[in-house]
């Protein structure tokens, strides 16, 4: 049953009033809710003091960006498992579309049109800008806000935009295929795993102690990745994590969109569902 516009407006107004009254009551100190004090807590203070501090050699991450150093160093294992969840979802969508493949000839017969020439030209100009912005977000992840996931999600919009504006046929004709993206994604994941074990391998080679997910030297484990490379601050493992996560996330999203944008006719033909 379609809701009338009067009912909708009444719903909106009542929700706004209820929320405002609740917020005012809490702000005035009612309802037993205690608003946390606005001053800096000791944990945040610790992160801010150790994120970039060359004098505390065994505690620092050597990265001026506190968020990225928390995400990939202080709680690196947590981020690893979050990434695993994301890639399990992508594996699930690939498994759902099994048996359906992208065939350039079939696509050419089906729908190779795309949108108007103005949109095509503008998209041609913007795709380069999108990739530049995403690379900047990902590779400066340890210096400015941003990081691997942010950069990857940004970069994934570029092939998606080309797919929507120029058609899937154009994309697959120019060599963007599901297998290539899977390879890129796997390479990114392997890179993340290798970076996680890098300190352990170095420690084994020099026969000292080392930890998984170790970035800078710690007490009892004096190995670590260099904080400065070619006179630039690279923050040890952080830049590698960001770089590999960037490729893995961008390729993962692109696989999903490649599979989703296959025309319905071809999907039905490949999966053996007859037309109604």
């Amino acid at each position, binding site marked *: 049953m379609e809701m009338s516009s009067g009912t909708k407006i009444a719903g909106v107004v009542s929700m706004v009033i209820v929320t405002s009254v609740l917020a005012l009551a809490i702000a005035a100190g009612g309802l037993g809710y205690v608003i946390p004090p606005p001053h800096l807590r000791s944990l945040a203070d610790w992160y801010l003091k150790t994120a970039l501090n060359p004098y505390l050699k065994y505690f620092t991450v050597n990265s001026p960006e506190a968020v990225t150093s928390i995400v990939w160093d202080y709680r690196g294992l947590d981020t690893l498992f979050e990434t695993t969840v994301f890639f399990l979802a992508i594996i699930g969508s690939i498994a759902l579309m099994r048996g359906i493949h992208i065939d350039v000839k079939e696509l050419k017969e*089906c729908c*190779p049109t*795309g949108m108007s020439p103005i*949109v095509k030209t503008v998209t041609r100009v*913007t795709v380069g800008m999108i990739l530049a912005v995403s690379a900047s977000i990902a590779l400066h992840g340890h210096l400015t806000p941003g990081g691997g996931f942010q950069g990857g999600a940004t970069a994934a919009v570029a092939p998606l935009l080309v797919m929507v504006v120029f058609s899937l046929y154009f994309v697959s004709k120019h060599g963007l295929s599901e297998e290539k993206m899977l390879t890129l994604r796997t390479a990114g994941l392997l890179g993340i795993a290798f970076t996680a074990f890098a300190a352990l391998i170095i420690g084994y080679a020099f026969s000292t102690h080392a930890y998984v997910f170790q970035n800078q030297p710690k007490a009892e484990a004096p190995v670590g990745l260099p904080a400065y490379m070619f006179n630039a601050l690279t923050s040890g493992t952080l830049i590698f994590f960001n770089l590999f996560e960037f490729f893995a996330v961008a390729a993962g999203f692109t696989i999903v969109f490649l599979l989703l944008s296959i025309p319905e006719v071809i999907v039905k033909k490949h999966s053996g569902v007859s037309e109604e």
Partner: protein
Amino acid sequence: MAGIEQQVTTFTLIMFPIYILAFTLYIIRAVKGPTIPDTVLAIDAMTYDLAAFLVILSIFFRSPILIPTAIVLALWVYALDVYVSKYLESKEMGG
């Protein structure tokens, strides 16, 4: 140099409510919009203005790290436009 700082800050503070007024009007059109293109157009115009406002605000807050958000916002609203036009125009999203 304190004169310039005071001047810019006061100017931005005066601009603040006017921008918010414009955003509210755009939102009203976006919610009312009788057809789909009306809604998209209102969201579109609002978000481009929002990107401009974010840059002005980062001058106001004196923090350069807030600048990239405006670039990202301006890029993705174009993507939203393109998706909806493609949806309306053609039979298949990937075609």
